[in-house]
């Protein structure tokens, strides 16, 4: 479903972010990418979103080479991927409800669907009573749950979570991981990057370990080894 084919990324000042990375992800998998800061986890994820271009190699999503999709069509591909970031990245001028509705609006979904689906996903992440709050009125954990709700509302094929627990305390971290697990159980592929040992050890799923831009381990049922 997702295939990284010998991807390298070298920046202009010849610092290497990724070096010859190849792996594939099957539908329904839950994979974690671990590594120290600067190991290339985020770069790897940005490649899939076409936020960055590789210096060589290619990234395929459902047999489409992501970087051959023109700028004005890339958004259609992105609608099939849900994204969650460490810094939440909610739209500050929109309420929780509107943030989620926005993702449905851009996908051209009908007004009726939005009215029925948004409260549903808000309930799913346990935020039914915060629908009309703006992001700055929510705690970090709540904001991240809104972000997850936004990521899943269009029923994407894959959820990309880039250090989603990086800014959260252990209780919120636990909740976010539980939600991601639940989503995975419902059949959605999940790519998670983290450097939280506890998260990896409690998941007992596939782990890809990165160091200085290279994949150094790929374990079926991995532990946090660094």
């Amino acid at each position, binding site marked *: 479903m997702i295939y990284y084919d010998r991807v390298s990324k070298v920046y202009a000042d010849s610092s290497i972010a990724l070096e010859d990375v190849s792996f594939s992800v099957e539908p329904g998998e839950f994979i974690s990418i671990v590594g120290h800061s600067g190991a290339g986890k985020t770069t790897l994820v940005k490649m899939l979103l076409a936020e960055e271009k590789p210096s060589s190699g290619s990234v395929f999503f459902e047999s489409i080479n992501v970087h051959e999709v023109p700028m004005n069509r890339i958004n259609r591909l992105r609608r099939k991927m849900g994204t969650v970031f460490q810094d939440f990245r909610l739209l500050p001028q929109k309420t929780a409800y509107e943030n989620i509705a926005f993702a449905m609006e851009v996908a*051209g979904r009908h007004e009726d669907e939005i009215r029925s689906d948004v409260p549903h996903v808000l309930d799913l992440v346990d935020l039914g009573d915060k629908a009309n709050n703006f992001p700055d009125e929510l705690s970090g954990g709540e904001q991240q749950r809104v972000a997850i709700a936004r990521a899943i509302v269009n029923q994407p094929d894959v959820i990309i979570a880039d250090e989603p627990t990086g800014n959260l305390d252990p209780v919120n971290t636990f909740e976010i991981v539980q939600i991601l697990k639940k989503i995975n159980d419902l059949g959605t592929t999940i790519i998670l990057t983290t450097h939280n040992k506890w998260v990896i050890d409690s998941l007992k799923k596939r782990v890809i370990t990165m160091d200085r831009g290279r994949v150094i381990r790929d374990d079926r049922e991995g532990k946090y080894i660094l």
Partner: protein
Amino acid sequence: MSWVTTKRIFRAGFLDFWRNGFVSLASILVMTVTLFVLGMTLFAGVILNSALSELRNKADVNVYFTTSAPEEQILQLQKSLQALPEVQTVEYVSAGDALAAFRERHQNDQLTLQALQELGDNPLGAVLNIRAKDISQYDVIAKFLQQQQALSSSQAGIIDKVNYFDEQHRQALNRLQHISDSAARLGLIIILILVLTTVAISFNTLRLAIYTSRDEIQVMRLVGAGQFYIRAPFMVEGVLYGLISGVITLVMFYPLTYWLGEATANFFGGVNVFSYYIGNFLLFFGVLIGTGVVLGAVSSYLAVRRYLKI
């Protein structure tokens, strides 16, 4: 574009406008200044034009006839002068009128009047005052008069003197033309600089306003929004800024021109800015609102572009 999308774009534009209250206010204020300057240059242009044409109207060429010149020949010359495309008016001042005017001018100068009395006869000839449509056209008219003079030389010319052939008069005319030309040019340059500067400031303000939204634009892209769907609400906002600023400016000009109307009418030679404003309200409406809307839409369009490259 479907109806639902249009509705969503407008709703998002209005909502952002309202929720970014302070940014909207600042943008409207700056844009109002721009439109105000633009409106002022319209007035300045009109005033400058009328003042310059007043100045140009001061120029004329006088043809002095000999005292013996028969009136019908003078009137004939007046007719043929009037037929010239360059000529605006030709005023005939008969010998009697010229004398009366002379007497009036020297009414306090007993010596001159006495001398005039001594002469008994009217020493003054008739005069034709010629006004050209444009100050640069006196040369053509003078040439025409020269020809006439040459033609009529056989029958003892009726023209005594054409003051255009005086070096002094010609120099004065040239200087007048030069002054009015360079004043017009200078006015245009100042107006252009002013307008360009304020437009640039407006444009930059909107760029800054959108700069504050650059992260949002990025998030919208990552959530899967199309380029147009992101850009359009910003353009709606820009158009709103323009509309509101345009209306504010139009309203502001009403008391301002009313207040300045009298003064400008007396000072700048005949243009009452208030009656000009009322008389040309549609022009002002079109220019100010139109500029505001176009400026808002185009600035937003361009400002969003750089953040869409993701």
